[in-house]
C-alpha cells in the first residue's frame, strides 16, 4: 500500500484546519502534524469567540442574567438559564412548585432531543450522506415547530424564570405536543435502525475516534461522549433535580467509544427524551407554575444539570444586591474537547471533521 502513495503523501507536514467551518460554523483552530495522511499530533487553539459574558453577567441584575445566559449558546439555550435559575433558587431557598418543575423538564427534554437530532444530522452531512441529513433535519423540524408553538421561538425558549417557568400549557397545546412527539418517536425508531445498520454509515464511523473507558476517567469526559464509552453517568439520575426524580428514564450507554457509538447514544437519548416529555405531559400536576420571589441574600451557590452535551455547572456569588458579584459556568464541551487529541491520534485527515462533530462541540458555550 505504501508504495502507491505519492512522495508528497509520505512526507510529514503540518496542516492547519479552521478556525472557520470545521464541522459546524463555529471557530476552532487545529494544527495537525501529519505523517502522510495520518494525524500524529493535534494542537488546539481556542478563544476566537470570547465575548466576555461572565463579566457581562456581573454587570446585570438577576433577571437580566436569565436572558443573558440563554444567549450563551443556541443549542443548549434552555440548559443555561435553567441551571442559572437553579443556582439562584439554591441561594435564596426558593422552592419551585411541582407544575413548574414538570414544565421545566418538558422544555429541557424538547431541547435535548432537537439538539441531538441536529448533531446526528450534521454527522450524515459530514460523511456526505446529504439525503439522510435533509431527512434528519426535517424530523428535527417537528421539534422546532413544537418549540415555536409552545414557547414562541425556535431556539430561545425563554421558558425559565427565577422561581419557576414563564409559560403554561392548556389542553389544546398538550394534545398538539403529544401528537407531534408521537410522530417524532416514529421517525426516531426508523432513524435508529438506519444509523445502526446502514453499511455506509458503519463503514465511515465505526472504529473512528475511539476513546477508551480509561480515557473517559483520565480526561473527565461527560455526557454522550462518556456514555458512548460505557460510562453510565447522567446528572439527571445521579443527582435528580426538577422533576427528574419522579420520571422514569434509562441512562443510555454504548460500548464502542467511537463516532458511531456517540451518534447511537444521541439518537437513543433523543427517543428517551421524547418518552420523558410524554410522561411529564401525562403526569403534569396542577397548581402554580412559579414561586413567589424572595430577596436574594449574600452568599454562594452552585447548581448542576445534564445539558445535551453533558454536565453543566453554575457557580453564583451574590452580595445581597440585585447584581451578582460573580457568575461562572463550566460547560461540558470544555471537558470533551480535551479528548480530541486522543480521538484524532493516528486517524485519517478525512476523519478530523467527523471526529470534531462527534463530540458535539459547543464553542460559543466554552469560550462565551
Amino acid at each position, binding site marked *: 500500500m505504501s508504495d502507491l502513495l505519492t512522495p508528497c503523501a509520505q512526507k510529514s507536514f503540518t496542516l492547519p484546519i479552521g478556525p472557520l467551518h470545521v464541522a459546524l460554523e463555529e471557530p476552532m483552530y487545529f494544527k495537525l502534524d501529519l505523517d502522510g495522511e495520518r494525524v500524529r499530533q493535534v494542537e488546539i487553539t481556542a478563544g476566537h469567540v470570547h465575548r466576555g459574558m461572565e463579566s457581562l453577567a456581573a454587570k446585570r441584575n438577576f*433577571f437580566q442574567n436569565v436572558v*443573558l445566559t440563554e444567549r450563551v449558546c443556541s443549542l443548549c439555550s434552555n440548559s443555561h438559564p435553567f441551571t442559572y435559575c437553579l443556582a439562584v433558587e439554591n441561594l435564596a431557598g426558593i422552592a419551585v412548585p411541582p407544575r413548574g418543575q414538570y414544565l421545566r423538564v418538558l422544555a429541557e427534554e424538547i431541547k435535548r432531543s432537537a439538539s441531538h437530532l441536529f448533531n446526528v444530522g450534521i454527522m450524515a452531512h459530514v460523511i456526505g450522506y446529504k*439525503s439522510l441529513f435533509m*431527512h434528519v433535519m426535517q424530523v428535527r423540524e417537528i421539534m422546532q415547530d413544537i418549540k415555536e408553538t409552545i414557547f414562541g421561538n425556535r431556539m*430561545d425558549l*425563554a421558558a425559565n*424564570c427565577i422561581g419557576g417557568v414563564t409559560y403554561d400549557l392548556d389542553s389544546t397545546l398538550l394534545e398538539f405536543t403529544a401528537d407531534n412527539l408521537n410522530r417524532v418517536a416514529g421517525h426516531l425508531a426508523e432513524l435508529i*435502525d438506519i444509523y445502526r445498520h446502514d*453499511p455506509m454509515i458503519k463503514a465511515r464511523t465505526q472504529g473512528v475516534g475511539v476513546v477508551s473507558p480509561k480515557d473517559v476517567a483520565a480526561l473527565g469526559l461527560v455526557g454522550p461522549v462518556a456514555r458512548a464509552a460505557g460510562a453510565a453517568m447522567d446528572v439527571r439520575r445521579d443527582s435528580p433535580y426538577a422533576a427528574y426524580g419522579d420520571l422514569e428514564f434509562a441512562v443510555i450507554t454504548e460500548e464502542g467509544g467511537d463516532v458511531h457509538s456517540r451518534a447511537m447514544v444521541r439518537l437513543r437519548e433523543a427517543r428517551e427524551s421524547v418518552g420523558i416529555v410524554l410522561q411529564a405531559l401525562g403526569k403534569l400536576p396542577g397548581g402554580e407554575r412559579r414561586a413567589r420571589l424572595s430577596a436574594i441574600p449574600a452568599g454562594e451557590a452552585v447548581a448542576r444539570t445534564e445539558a445535551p452535551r453533558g454536565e453543566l455547572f453554575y457557580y453564583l456569588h451574590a452580595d445581597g444586591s440585585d447584581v451578582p458579584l460573580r457568575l461562572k459556568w463550566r460547560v461540558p464541551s470544555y471537558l470533551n474537547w480535551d479528548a480530541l487529541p486522543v480521538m484524532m491520534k493516528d486517524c485519517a485527515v478525512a476523519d478530523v471533521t467527523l471526529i470534531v462533530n462527534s463530540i458535539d462541540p459547543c464553542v460559543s458555550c466554552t469560550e462565551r
Partner: protein
Amino acid sequence: MPRFLKILVRNLLKGPATDPFPFQEAFTPDRLRGRVVLNPDLCLGCGICRHVCPGEAIRLEPDEGRTGYSFSIWHNTCALCGSCRHFCPTGAITLNADWHGAHPQTDKYRHAEHHFVPYLRCAGCGAPLRPLPPGIAARLYAHSPLDMTQVVKLCPDCRLTATAKREGERYGTTANPG
C-alpha cells in the same frame, strides 16, 4: 441503504417540506414572539419592564414639565425574550406574532414604538400623579366599601391625609385619649 430508500421514496411522494413563502403565509403559531407592543391605557409607569429588559430596549422617562412620561420600545435592541411581558403587573405589555420586522437600514431609528402617557393631577394638591388603570383600581379596591373612583384621583400624600381625616371622623368620639 435500502432502509433509507424507503424513506426517500416516501419523502419524494410527499413533495416539498418547505412553506412557499412569500407566495403563501408561513407557519406562524399564535404564541410566536414577534414584536413587543404596549397598551398605554394599562401602563402604570412602574418601570419593572425597563428593570428586567436585558438589552435596555425600553426607555421610560418623565417629560420636562412633568405632564406625563414617554415610553419607548426599540425593536432593534429588543431580544424578544418576553421578560417585560412576564413581569408586567397589569398585562400592558404583550408580544404579537408579527415577525415581519425587516426594514431598510435607513428606517432603523424609526423601528420603534413610542407612547406618551399623561400624568393626572392630584385632586387634592395638584401634584403629578401616575394614573391607576381602572381595571387595576377595581382589583385593588374590590373588597373596600370606599368609592375608589374618588380615591384614585389623589396622590399618595393626599390619600394618607384623606384616610386620616376619614378614620378620625369615624373614631373621633370613641378614640378620644384620656
